[in-house]
């Protein structure tokens, strides 16, 4: 049983016990991309916990009963299971492993109470829908081993939220009742600005573009849609900026020193109307996105943050699904012979976008 897998350990890359998100990050780390350091509390740890607490059977049963049940039933099943997960004792070897790993991470950071981000990383790709439903969690600025343990438990409990229980995989796929979860623990990046970057234009599907969305502060604002981000469109081939709109930003997600947790705070006045990224940073980010896409062999959707040192970090990578899953349609409907196309153009029949790409 391996309860802890480090992102920068060579064996971790793509290890399924890290869940989708962290396995990808381990792979990114191995490929030399700058990913905040950390470890995953593996699916083995989760299973060991359920087994030791005698909850494995209850978990399966909960899922089985929730299938096709009414909302009220689902909610009461969810509440019972969540209580059980949050109160059951954790096996000592699991707890020790997590404490040990956190201590090692804190030592690397040079701060015994180093703040970390604690995030769910689902085992099965089928559970992508669940993350959209908001049942997979990210907890920021978690500090100290006790807090880390508490938040790991919360992520585990998140597996039994009503939306996860009612989530149905795509038709034709086997329903799984036994999937597990990994919980990732990473150094907290107190982002100066952050956001997402797509390696294609999500609106048109144009693969020759990199589209960056970013805002001041943590990227939660962009991901949740709570903050209107600035948007930059960069040509992937030439790195020319082909579009940009800088949003005026009044508030941002950041550490609220009063509460010690993440909250909405005012953007310093002098930054409100300013672009959160410089021209050079936009270029660097577009280059990073392009390298990641090339490395992963398909269009990606990437979460990024700019650290206080001005360095770019990769927080998450996942395959773009909307355009990549759509059947490839001919882009331009026009005769194949160039001379005919040109002659038609003179007669007013221009190159037009094919159907489905309006």
């Amino acid at each position, binding site marked *: 049983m391996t309860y802890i897998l480090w992102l920068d350990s060579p064996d971790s890359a793509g290890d399924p016990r890290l869940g989708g998100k962290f396995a990808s990050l381990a792979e990114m780390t191995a490929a030399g991309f700058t990913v905040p350091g950390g470890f995953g509390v593996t699916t083995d740890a989760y299973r060991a916990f359920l087994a030791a607490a005698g909850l494995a059977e209850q978990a399966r049963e909960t899922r089985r009963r929730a299938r096709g049940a009414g909302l009220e039933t689902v909610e009461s099943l969810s509440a019972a299971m969540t209580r059980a997960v949050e109160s059951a004792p954790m096996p000592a070897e699991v707890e020790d492993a997590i404490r040990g790993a956190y201590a090692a991470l804190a030592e690397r950071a040079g701060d015994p109470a180093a703040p970390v981000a604690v995030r769910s990383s689902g085992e099965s790709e089928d559970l992508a829908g669940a993350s959209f439903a908001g049942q997979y969690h990210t907890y920021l600025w978690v500090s100290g081993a006790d807090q880390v343990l508490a938040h790991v438990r919360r992520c585990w409990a998140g597996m039994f939220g009503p939306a996860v229980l009612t989530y149905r995989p795509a038709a034709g796929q086997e329903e799984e009742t036994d999937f597990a979860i990994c919980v990732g623990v990473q150094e907290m990046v107190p982002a100066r600005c952050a956001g997402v970057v797509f390696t294609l*234009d999500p609106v*048109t*599907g*144009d*693969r*020759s*573009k990199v589209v960056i969305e970013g805002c001041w502060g943590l990227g939660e604002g962009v991901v949740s849609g709570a903050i209107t981000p600035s948007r930059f*469109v960069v*040509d*992937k*081939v*030439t790195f*020319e*900026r*082909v*579009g940009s709109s800088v949003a005026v930003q009044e508030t941002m997600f950041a550490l609220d020193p009063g509460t010690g947790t993440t909250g909405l705070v005012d953007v310093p006045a002098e930054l409100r109307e300013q672009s959160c990224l410089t*021209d050079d940073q936009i270029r660097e980010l577009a280059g990073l996105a392009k390298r990641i896409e090339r490395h992963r062999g398909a269009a990606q959707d990437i979460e990024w943050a700019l650290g206080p040192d001005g360095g770019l970090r990769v927080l998450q990578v996942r395959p773009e699904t909307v355009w990549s899953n759509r059947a*490839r*349609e*001919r*882009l*331009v409907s*026009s005769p*194949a*012979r*160039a*001379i005919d*196309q*040109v*002659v038609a*153009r*003179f*007669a*007013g029949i*221009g*190159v*037009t*976008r094919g159907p489905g790409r309006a």
Partner: protein
Amino acid sequence: MTATSPQSPPPPTPPTSEPTPQPAAAAVPGVRFASPFAVPTPPGAEGWESMYPYYALLSEDRRKDEDARFWFFDGMHNPEPLYPFDTIATENWWVAVSQMSTRVWPIPLAGGIDHRIVNGYLYVSPTAVTDQEQIAARARHFAERAGHYYENWDEIYAGWEAKARDCIERLKAIDFAPLPDLEPLESVTGGRGLYSSYDLLTRYTTLINNFFEMGSYHFEMLNLGYGAYLTFREFCQAAFPGISDQTIASMVSGIDIMLFRPDDEVRKLAALAVELGLDRALLSSEDPDEALAAVAGAGDPGARWLAAFEAAKDPWFWFSTGAGYQHSDRAWIDDLRLPFRALRGYIAGLRAGEDIRRPLEAITEERERVTAEYRSYLPTDEDRESFDGLVALARKVFPFVENHNFYVEHWHHSMFWSKVRSLGRVFVAHGFFDDEEDIFYLHRTEVQSALYDLLIGWGTGIEPRGVTYWRPEIARRRRIREALKAHSPAPALGVPPEFLTEPLTIMLWGITPEAVQDWLGVADSGERVLRGVAASPGRAVGRARVILDPEQLHEVRDGEILVCRITAPSWAPVFSRLAAAVSDVGGIMAHTAIVCREYGLPSVVGTGFATTTVRTGELLEVDGDTGTVRVLEEPEAAEDAGIAAVGA
């Protein structure tokens, strides 16, 4: 009545001073431009119409049509008020471009381009064909005729180059000399029966015909070339929304094209000078004659370099400082200061250990990388097939598109203007003019008449009328032209067009529906932001240097932003000192945008108003990615203008 019938003197009352029967429409922001009939004659320019032929002027008889059209100022080819003689170039393409659209191909959607001269400035008006039946009928002819050209392009282009070279050779052979007091003995004993008078007269006719011959070749393939490129461009814009024009052009434009040769020759001469140890001699003076004398005094190496210099000069220094459409666009060969300035710069670079060669291999590799990468982002095999076909066709037609410019506007036209000057010297020798340049104040048909007047005087031995007729007339025209020159023309007149379909209008002048809308809006807003065509990427901030005359190029200082009506490729030597370039006119394929991109200079062209809005010394921000020019601040003090260049 007019300049075309010089037998009668110009009318004493200019037409514009006559009361007009109806008020002419003023400009309405966002809706229309001022009527061409509403343009007032600048003070001191009264009677300007007499310098130009009747058919080039607005008239009450054609007012209904003239008032309903859209006219835009062709500052690209003729930034200044036209010299009467220079109308040969504009009148040539008035027919030569239009006939291709209407009679030769014909182009399904585009009719002829009409011309009018307003206050001495050339305004042109494209015509759209909108009747569906007409379009269909024209399209059938076009498919057959244009198809033939595209199918046999390389062969036809090879033939074109041969015709162009032959035309230039025949131009070169035309010589003008003052008439002899007594015919040489050989012309009598030879029994030819034709004398110097006949030769002078027919050489002039040959010269004029030679211009129209090259003028016809000029447009033989141009529309087709632009059309193939436009189709590829539109494919790219549909496939990669937002892709910039310069990127599309970079996939197609040639690397080893003739327009780069003059500058390449200067680089080679610089390298040879350093190799032969002549760098000191060439750097010894800013005056090309003195520098050449210093080289001539340097023994064998000097002679070797001079031989290389002479070889490079013909044809590569037949390189105009303007668009080549005006006689005042002097070529390098007439004014060696420009190439010598570049030469000194390259020699200094070589001495500092720089590699001054253009990185041809790297540019070629980059072009292939860019093309292959865009191709890889297309979704289906069919799209890639379309892309491959269109890029190949665009590359096939581009050598003509790019090189015709050197053959026609630079090599031929520069030589043509210099031949006209040599005819001007004949008039000076016979007492008609004080200066060879005065000939350009006469329309070509007036020159024909004046020449006959000269022959009469020579034949009869009695003072010709022209000796007393032309001096005051030329003085009058000079005054008028100066008055016209002091007034910048509006970028457009009349009614904004519903359709813009003429490929040259879009490609060359950058006249797009968006540009027209911008002009309509900006015209009255007084805003200090100019929009134009993003011709070359990048952003720069610097002090403006407004250049209206190539003569002023020597005023440009390091780090300045050039603001001009049009940039010319032969200005290349100053480009290395600039932070950016902005022009009033031009589209992505304006003769010069090509070179701007080559020099990696942020550039916005087709702004319409830069030279009339921006003053030398103002701090500008030029964004070559978005095509905007912003005036950041006024000049601090007149004497600081240009010195406080940012980014120098």
